[in-house]
């Protein structure tokens, strides 16, 4: 079976082709066209600009993805229908609907967050499992009974972890996106500033990053930010605090819910420090740790294709609509 997937929920235009036979999954092609250099100038994704870029990129990306494949070989079209920016989602969704109509192929709406988790499903997962999903818009812990039954057990009560990285980068004048820059700076720094670990001791699996960001703001106001030492040390202190909270809460959930596997997904899962510490702490408890390779952590259509190979619900193109608020329950 061949699945064509399309993903345009934020600022990456992406298409991928997956082939599955007898339970074996192979990504045949995966094309991602990023708009990051355009949005960099604005300090974040600009909806109107993103929509225009998606419209311009979607056909070349699809063409490149399907270079060696004929339309009639495709068995299913999958598309990210939410959550995300409505102006971005709609480009991918309408393109997928048009292909479904023209090729007379079934269509499937895939949840973007489920797609992030599914990037881990290339390996056989031992259930039950918990998955930490960390990105610019989300920070949540999902408990999975199996590939298809899952429930959200914890989440941020304010900012997402990735957003905290972006905001810290902004107040230290480091540019956008914040994750890679802060992480790079942090690797050269000494975590000498004392920052809070919000909600660490609370008896739930929720997070809070707003207070951590504000603590960085207040301490940074007292520092000479022209001195690189101060900046790298603040980045290191912030990253250490964020990684500690994410790790401790995820491990706590894994223990309490008797998970056999701990997984991680989303753009912030590309953070090296977080990968290293969460892996170490998970393995200490005798559990298996899974994290997708870097290219499958940030937004991409391959993860949507993998998700579609596990999901069952195909639909008629007339019934599928972009839903910017489609949250995992």
């Amino acid at each position, binding site marked *: 079976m061949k699945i064509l997937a399309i993903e345009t929920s934020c600022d990456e235009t992406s298409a991928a082709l997956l082939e599955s036979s007898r339970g074996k999954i192979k990504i045949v092609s995966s094309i991602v066209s990023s708009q990051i250099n355009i949005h960099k100038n*604005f300090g974040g994704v600009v*909806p109107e600009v993103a929509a225009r870029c998606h419209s311009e990129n979607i056909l070349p990306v699809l063409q490149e993805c399907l270079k060696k494949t004929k339309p009639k070989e495709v068995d299913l079209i999958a598309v990210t229908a939410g959550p995300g920016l409505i102006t971005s989602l709609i480009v991918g969704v309408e393109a997928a609907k048009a292909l479904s109509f023209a090729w007379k192929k079934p269509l499937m709406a895939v949840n973007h967050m489920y797609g992030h988790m599914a990037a881990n499903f290339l390996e056989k997962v031992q259930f039950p499992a918990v998955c930490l999903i960390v990105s610019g818009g989300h920070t949540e812990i999902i408990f999975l009974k199996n590939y298809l039954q899952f429930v959200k057990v914890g989440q941020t009560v304010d900012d997402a972890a*990735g957003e905290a990285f972006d905001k810290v980068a902004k107040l230290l004048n480091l540019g956008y996106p914040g994750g890679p820059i802060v992480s790079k700076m942090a690797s050269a720094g000494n975590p000498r500033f004392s920052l809070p670990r919000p909600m660490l001791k609370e008896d739930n699996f929720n997070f809070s990053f707003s207070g951590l960001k504000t603590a960085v703001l207040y301490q940074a106001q007292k520092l000479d930010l022209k001195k690189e030492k101060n900046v790298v040390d603040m980045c290191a202190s912030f990253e250490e605090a964020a990684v500690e909270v994410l790790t401790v809460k995820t491990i706590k959930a894994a223990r309490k819910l008797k998970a056999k596997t701990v997984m991680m997904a989303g753009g912030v899962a590309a953070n090296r420090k977080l990968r290293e510490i969460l892996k170490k702490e998970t393995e200490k408890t005798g559990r298996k740790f899974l994290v997708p390779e870097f290219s499958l952590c940030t937004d991409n259509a391959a993860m949507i294709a993998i998700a579609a190979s596990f999901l069952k619900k195909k639909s008629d193109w007339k019934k599928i609509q972009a839903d910017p608020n489609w949250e995992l329950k």
Partner: protein
Amino acid sequence: MILKSEKQTRAWARKFASGLKGGEVLCLVGDLGSGKTAFTKGLAQGLGVKQIITSPTFVLMKVYEGNLNLVHIDAYRLSSGEDLKAIGASDYFSDPNYVTVIEWADKVKDVWPKKRIMIWFEVKGKNQREIIIKQIGK
């Protein structure tokens, strides 16, 4: 009005919500950490929203179901209201089923409806916040 803690801000916002009828646009103006988010969380509770209110900075707008529905907009990283129009935010502005909250509203003055409620937040001390409310237009 002076509020002395985040808890007080939330409680006051809950009460404020009970006076809303739907179709209102609340423009929140104030620095980082001045209580805008605490206000929005309290307001959501008062409107009967059951979900946790999380930051809409990344997607710019989140919509929540309640007795009156809540539209939560964050204009933090915008420089004009054009993008709010693009994502359809202004469609909610006079809809009687929705109450709209715009954080960092001073960044998107061009989409302010004539009839709106301005709320200014100011940091007066470690936990103390001053809040000023003004109803604009009739």
